[in-house]
């Protein structure tokens, strides 16, 4: 999976940097913590802001996610994928929880990512972002909107079906198809 992007197999040096930083964080190194924050706070904050649409709430999520790393760096291990990807997903899930005003529904330790992008490298991260945006932009508008409603707005398939008037099965298929298109774009 994603082999052709050159972002998998043996971890690139900057990816190892993330692992190294986590080891330092585990030992209580505050500078390592600030380095991780500088590297990933923009994505974590932006995802939270997109979901919550409120800067103050997004800042709270940002703080919460990074304090989770500080308190329990073991919750992420390199085998679970890239730290940047993990943080983006955790930020989204925490934001949805905040949106629903409920306690975190899952332990962050439960999230495993099959991908292994080198998001520690800013250039590669930007390249991946550009490519992903292009792919999403080229999706049929129904697929794009449905995925957006599910992921960023946290609407259930039933809610989406009710809002759009589409059958439940269609909503599910659109979400799946959009994700598969995204996956294929990074596979070939």
């Amino acid at each position, binding site marked *: 999976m994603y082999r052709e992007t050159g972002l998998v197999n043996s971890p690139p040096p900057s990816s190892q940097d993330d692992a190294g930083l986590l080891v330092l964080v585990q030992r209580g190194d*505050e500078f390592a913590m600030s380095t991780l924050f500088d590297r990933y706070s923009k*994505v974590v904050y*932006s995802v939270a802001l997109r979901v919550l649409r409120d800067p103050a709430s*997004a800042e709270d999520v940002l703080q919460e996610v990074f304090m989770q790393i*500080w308190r329990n760096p073991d919750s992420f291990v390199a085998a679970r*994928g890239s730290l*940047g990807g993990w943080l983006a997903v955790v930020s989204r899930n925490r934001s949805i929880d905040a949106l629903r005003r409920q306690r975190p529904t899952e332990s962050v330790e439960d999230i495993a990512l099959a991908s292994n992008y080198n998001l520690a490298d800013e250039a590669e991260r930007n390249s991946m972002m550009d490519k992903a*945006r292009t792919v999403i932009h080229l999706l049929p508008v129904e697929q794009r909107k449905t995925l957006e409603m599910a992921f960023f707005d946290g609407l259930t398939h039933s809610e989406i079906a009710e809002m759009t008037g589409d059958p439940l099965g269609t909503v599910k298929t659109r979400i799946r198809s959009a994700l598969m298109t*995204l996956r294929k774009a990074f596979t070939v």
Partner: protein
Amino acid sequence: MSMPNNIAPEDLALFAMQLLSKEEAAEVAAYLERSEEARRELARIQGDLAVYAHTVDLHSPPAQVRERLMKQVAREKKPVPIERPAPVETPKRAAPMHGGANVAASTVAAHDEPEPLIGRTSRLIDDEPPKRSAAGRVFPWVGWAVAAGLAVAGGNLYRQRDSLVQERDNLHATVADQATKLDQMTADTAAARQVLETLTDTTAKRVMLTKGKTAPVPQGRATYVADKGALIFTANNLDPLPPLKTYELWLIPAAAGGAPIPAGTFRPDERGNASVILPTLPKGVEAKAFGVTIEDKDGAATPTLPIILVGA
């Protein structure tokens, strides 16, 4: 709960996004327990979602968020783990071969496991101590309890002491850092003051070097930083002025049609020297030229011809 034989990939995507009802999510979770392929697919979906999350428009968090986080991090400072060699243990019996934590667990269990009852009973019979009164049985334990209490209290005090020492060291480091910065700022301020005093000292000897022997002519030198609106002007060989007159410096803006901006009035000393240091000027005004005119003693809003000195 009924165990489905299969879960549609569409539902795995919804599960990954936490969009299923509790019952549906429990069903999928149960299926995931049994199916490695489903777990792999779920991980792939999480990877897809991570990529999708990165399509968001990027915004930088406010700077104070970083500050707040690092303060919180400092408040929750972690004790640095001390690495010690693993103790060499002689197990009472061979632990069964399990992986990872199980090995440790079984080792611990072996140590904690009570001895067989038969052996214990025989030892009780062989080494049975003489019977003692209630006080005799209790007092030895009181001693141990006091010792244990003291040990716990001592441990707590030791930890508190470590924490205080760490805090003190941090404070020392901060104070030393601030002292260094203060020294640097003091030195910079002293240097800046000396420059200003030298420029404005009326007793300073100012010498204009010219080629050969030429009659001294009035000269001025303006140093100007438009972005900061900062101007330093020095002049030499100025003619003395009548009592109710003053020289006035003007900034002529580069922008077309820009009116000259008054940049300070000054009177030369008996040697013909004068200076204008950091007059009040708007920031960001590019200068085309500077000029000096003679005005009434309170200065003017517009320059009066002729221009005594001009430079571009």
